[in-house]
């Protein structure tokens, strides 16, 4: 149905190697194709070229051809392709044009000039198809991440496109909401015969549904094939595939169900699950929260929460979007005044401290690290951080060199990759030497190698000899939690529903279990554990 022929794209200023290099791809009716690749490999560029947004919104030169049913559409702008290709971008909230769900669903159809009765019927059908009929009059900004994502999908579906293009639809969602969105996508493919092209970082979620997998390599070459074949050699692979490679399974299992069937033999070879080294549980806690209540207006965002963070421990904080994770973090930082209970961070109540005292007790890295940055070069940012923390010059640059070696100090912070920018933000807040480090959703937009590096880094920072820190990290990524964390705290509706060591926490709840645990049973958390045992 849609066909890419020798599609090549490169930025002209400054002259750079090709982002896409002679890419060929054909997508048939009713096919679900997953696009994978390391961060910055050009996945979004490829999707944008299909939708018509590249090069008009990015600059650069595109050559080659895009055919829709044999007709070239490469010169048509995105708006003239809207009836056939529906595009959902990375951050749906930034894409909403209107302000209520119903109007948003109708917007695309209004542009296409469909008759009013048709629009009415399609809006109702789409509301039902996506299970959002009860949200129809809601303000879009009040919706949760998963709901927003479904509205965004619905708003392009109403135009009845033949191909749906999605850029990381689940990257900001909690595991359950992500499952919902993916289930919706498979239903569209099966029931309506829509073709889907989806880019995704967390392959473990989408690969089981994929008909074919495209792997975009660093130099812009595209490898297309059966998921099990492509993943055999791929540099990025979900944990289950890494496990399969390690155990020498053939063909590679892509679903937990397939892997479980092959697991008994491996389990016998492995023997008893390893005991993870626990940090010192007797050290005096750095953060001590008792029966904490925080309210926004009249609604309690956090209620009756007890939390203890000890030096040398990495604690993961999980829970749905809107469960109170960010509120809890900002309360520990001191920005929110508790409505009840007590908070002690390094021996004092953070809400009573001055901003500069807060910075020396807790370092918080917010959800979008870019909010912290305002100068033109990395070197300037580091120098400013040293000055304001009254540390000898070079402290921040030294930290950055340790966290993300090899960043050019003359670079603009906006030109850094997601992982590098995160490292810069972490270095800036750590310059003031706070004993407590809080990170709000740091794994967004990171690929497997980057997440692996971040996990190792957090463990190092927590256990730095003579300088032990307490680290709290809010995330949706169970695989990351399995790699990085010692303890797990799960929040729901502002209350703690489970707290304890990670191995116990993930064994208790199936939706938070990492793939390795699902396959090999409780005790096994990550592929590294298995590799060490073999």
């Amino acid at each position, binding site marked *: 149905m849609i066909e890419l022929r020798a599609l090549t794209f490169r930025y002209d200023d400054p002259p750079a190697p090709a982002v896409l290099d002679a890419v060929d791809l054909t997508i048939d009716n009713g096919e679900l194709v997953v696009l994978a690749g390391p961060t910055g490999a050009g996945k979004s560029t490829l999707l944008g070229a299909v939708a018509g947004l590249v090069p008009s919104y990015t600059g650069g030169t595109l050559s080659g051809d895009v055919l829709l049913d044999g007709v070239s559409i490469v010169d048509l702008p995105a*708006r003239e392709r809207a009836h056939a290709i*529906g595009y959902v*971008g990375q951050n749906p909230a930034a894409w909403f044009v209107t302000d209520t769900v119903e109007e948003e669903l*109708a917007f695309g159809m209004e542009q296409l000039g469909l008759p*009013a009765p048709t629009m009415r019927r399609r809006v109702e059908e789409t509301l039902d198809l996506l299970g959002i009929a009860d949200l129809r009059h809601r303000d879009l900004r009040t919706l949760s991440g998963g709901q927003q994502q479904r509205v965004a999908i619905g708003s392009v579906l109403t135009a009845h496109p033949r191909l749906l293009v999605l850029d990381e639809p689940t990257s900001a969602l909690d595991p359950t909401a992500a499952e919902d969105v993916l289930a919706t996508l498979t239903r569209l493919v099966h029931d309506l015969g829509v073709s889907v092209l989806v880019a995704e970082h967390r392959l473990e979620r989408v690969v089981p549904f994929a008909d074919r997998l495209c792997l975009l390599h660093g130099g812009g070459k595209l490898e297309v094939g059966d998921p099990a074949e492509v993943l055999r050699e791929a540099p990025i692979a979900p944990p289950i595939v890494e496990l399969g490679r390690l155990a020498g399974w053939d063909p590679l299992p892509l679903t937990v169900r397939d892997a479980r069937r092959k697991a008994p033999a491996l389990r016998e070879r492995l023997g008893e699950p390893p005991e993870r080294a626990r940090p010192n549980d007797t050290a005096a806690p750095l953060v001590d929260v008792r029966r904490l209540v925080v309210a926004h207006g009249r609604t309690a965002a956090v209620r009756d929460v007890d939390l203890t963070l000890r030096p040398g421990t990495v604690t993961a904080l999980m829970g749905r979007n809107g469960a109170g994770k960010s509120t809890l973090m900002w309360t520990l*930082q001191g920005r929110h005044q508790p409505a009840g209970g007590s908070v002690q961070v390094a021996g004092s109540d953070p809400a009573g401290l001055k901003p500069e005292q807060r910075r020396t007790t807790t370092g918080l890295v917010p959800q979008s690290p870019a909010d912290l940055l305002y100068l033109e070069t990395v070197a300037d940012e580091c120098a400013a951080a040293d*000055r304001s923390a009254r540390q000898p010059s070079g402290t921040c640059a030294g930290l950055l060199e340790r966290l993300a070696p090899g960043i050019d100090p003359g670079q603009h912070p906006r030109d850094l990759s997601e992982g590098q920018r995160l490292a810069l933000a972490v270095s800036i807040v750590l310059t003031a030497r706070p004993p407590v480090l809080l990170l709000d959703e740091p794994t967004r937009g990171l690929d497997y190698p980057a997440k692996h590096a971040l996990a190792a880094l957090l463990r190092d920072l927590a256990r730095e000899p003579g300088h032990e820190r307490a680290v709290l990290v809010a995330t949706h990524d169970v695989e990351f939690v399995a790699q990085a964390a010692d303890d797990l705290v799960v929040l729901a509706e502002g209350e703690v529903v489970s707290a304890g060591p990670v191995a116990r926490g993930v064994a208790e709840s199936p939706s938070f279990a990492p793939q390795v645990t699902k396959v090999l049973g409780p005790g096994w958390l990550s592929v590294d554990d298995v590799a060490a045992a073999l």
Partner: protein
Amino acid sequence: MRLPRDLHPVAWWAWAVGLAVASSCTTNPLLLVGLLGTMTLVVLTCRSDQPWARSFRLYVWLGAITLVVRIVFRIVLGGDVPGHVLFTLPSIPLPDWAAGISLLGPFTREELLAATYEGLRLATLLIAVGAANALANPKRLMKSLPPALYEIGTAMTVAISVVPQLADSARRVRAAQQLRGGPEGRFRRIRGVRRLLVPILEDSFDRSLALAAGMDARGYGRTGDLTPGQRRATGALILAGLLGVCVGVYAFLDSSAPRVLAVPMLVLGMVVALGGFALAGRRVGRTRYRPDRWRLPEVLVAASGIAAGAGMWAVQRWEPQVAHPGVLTTPGLSLLAVAAALVAVLPVWVAPLPLTVARREAVLAG
């Protein structure tokens, strides 16, 4: 039976413009207070629970401030008007080149009344605009623009929704910048502004670009089978027409301009512009989801406002003593004047009930 729904926003604006005309036709404080009461009653009963509905209070404050400022100016700049002196402030004569104006000095009851009447008239006018803002859904108003202006309307709708987003992002960046220290020493406040502005602007540029891409990907601005020549012709017609209207209005108001530029130019401009709109409208391949319809309640609401305006104009024309009683006599009333001031209260009974969250939930609960 009146079912809850949004009234056509143009109907509310017609009603409010009628009231604004009515209030500019009189300085009679009794009539002005009557108009104010009418507006307040209608706003309180007919407004929804959306954010813009809360803006009425803002306009009331604005009106009150206008009134006070008017009186203060009269105290400062007035003087030298004969009448009952209320109090005397030391007079400050200005030098000769200021043409004999003196500041402060005696303040008379007549001056106070004149300032109050004028201020009240201005305040009523402002509050009429506020009433329209509180009652009419601004986004639906944009949607009722003629199809030719659709693109401008959408741009305005987007602009309206950018403001709350900008506030969100400002709050987020402020909190984030607290997490790291700022510049120190002298001028740190001025240099600190940059810490907020740079991330906020970057964020809003990113957002605008994303929104533009999103709208484009969903077909916004599709030209269909319109040729560039046709588009240029329509644009030229509309622009030329609007220019004609502007010249006409200017000549109409400025009595020294040649008369041939006045009414004929106005009419010609309107015809050309309407022609352009019609041409553009016919070629637009867009449709509207659930358009607002013009039904009986809309007609009644708009008519009641227009009746108030027309009635008050008639009072000014034929009963000038009632419309402008002056400051020397007690203001009087007449049947026509009272009717004109109170007829605009009709929406309280004829307008559909406003849509609120509670009513919507009641429907869902069934």
